[in-house]
């Protein structure tokens, strides 16, 4: 039986050669055209995504119930603390509402209708995380059927999460800004200086921060705690999306630019739901 099988079919030498050549051709093809799967995406869409949706739900429920081991006293104590917090927050909300009203009136006076934060969004659930430990990508359960396109921005917790890199019928792959290959053009909101924010696996695993570089700050005005947002000159990211706070700054060796680290506002380790902004930078420019 075994002998007959070994005799028939293609010897493994040739098989290896043929498949290697196919792989290398695919590599070159995807490098030159940005091909990410084509018809295979549609197949995987129908086979994997429905199961992933269900299984991820089970996985997250198990993860929650295993973390759910607080005692009653702890819960009561936490509840009291939270109640106190709610009162504080309520007080500050009413305070802010007053200020907001004032701001509205002033804006009307200035006729400023340029509000960045009313982008149209759609909610999506993360159904699968990265396929390896080296990259920070994840799959969400909305795709081209729901109007999602490549290069749309993804936000959560009021901060930028990442960008859509490939889209299937009912799923999309998102690359997070903390991914090692990600680069975002950003602005320090206090001084309006531009810089480049790049994700880093190394600093993310050790300190939970991402890096920024090429910051031109001659007057030493940028300080720790400053807010970093996406910039107007970025060609893929919409302007005014929050990235995080500066956690350290230092002068580069060339003594012209500065670099340092940023603490992102989004908790990338416990992300389960995100919002996708249904507008790409290209269409935004056209408005």
């Amino acid at each position, binding site marked *: 039986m075994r002998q007959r099988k070994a005799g028939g079919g293609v010897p*493994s030498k040739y098989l*290896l050669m043929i498949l*290697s050549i196919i792989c290398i*051709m*695919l590599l070159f093809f995807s490098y030159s055209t940005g091909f990410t799967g084509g018809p295979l995406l549609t197949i995987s869409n129908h086979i994997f995504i429905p199961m992933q949706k269900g*299984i991820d739900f089970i996985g997250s429920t198990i993860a929650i119930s295993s973390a759910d081991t607080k005692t009653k006293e702890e819960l009561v104590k936490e509840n009291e603390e939270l109640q106190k917090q709610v009162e504080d927050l309520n007080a500050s909300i009413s305070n802010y509402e007053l200020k907001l009203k004032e701001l509205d009136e002033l804006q009307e006076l200035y006729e400023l209708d340029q509000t960045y934060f009313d982008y149209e969004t759609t909610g999506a659930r993360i159904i699968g995380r990265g*396929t390896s430990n080296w*990259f920070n990508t994840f*799959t969400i359960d909305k795709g081209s059927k729901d109007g999602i396109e490549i290069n749309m921005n993804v936000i959560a917790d009021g901060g930028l999460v990442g960008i859509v890199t490939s889209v299937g019928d009912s799923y999309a792959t998102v690359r997070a800004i903390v991914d090692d290959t990600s680069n975002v053009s950003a602005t320090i909101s206090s001084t309006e200086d531009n810089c480049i924010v790049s994700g880093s696996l190394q600093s993310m695993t050790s300190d939970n921060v991402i890096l920024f570089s090429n910051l031109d700050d001659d007057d030493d005005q940028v300080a720790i705690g400053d807010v970093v947002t996406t910039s107007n000159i970025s060609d893929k990211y919409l302007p005014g999306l929050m990235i995080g706070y500066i956690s350290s700054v230092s002068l580069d060796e060339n003594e012209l630019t500065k670099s340092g680290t940023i603490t992102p506002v989004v908790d990338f380790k416990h992300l389960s739901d995100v919002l996708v902004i249904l507008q790409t930078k290209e269409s935004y420019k056209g408005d």
Partner: protein
Amino acid sequence: MTDYKQYLRRILIIAAVIYVCFLLQTSIFSHFQLASVTPNILVCVVSTYGFMKGRKYGIIIGFCTGLLLDVFSGNLFGMYALIYMYIGLLNGMFRKQFYGDDLRLPMILIGTSDLIYGIVTYLILFAIRSQYDFSYYLINIILPEVVYTLLVSIFVYYLILHLNNWVDKLEKKGSDRIGNY
């Protein structure tokens, strides 16, 4: 006719194993990270089939698994297929040394496979972008992944071993009845 049926059954079973393990890796184990790594179950599958069934199986299963990862990773298409295919091939070379009930060789092979996978990924995707701090990546990403993968691979290995024995038994029964064995 029976040959054809057996082939089909084997392909379906292997496809099911890959399918389940892929879902496990991306949707379940991503919630149970230890030291911020997830185990690489698909390397276990490719490696186990490699040394259990030989080079040809290793190559084909590695290629298919890699292609699957390529579809969902959004990186350069075809890269994982290449890496996993060669992992399958390397494991296939140890088929003659393999005896089912001894756990040492499978563990060594799966561990080495995952180590190779980690180092190659580092070289192709990180060193090329001038991230030269290899020792950092080795200690914080590659080695934790190897340890966690080995832990999980004990279960995966036994599952595949029993599945394989069961299929072999079924096929032997079938061929006995016809009388061509």
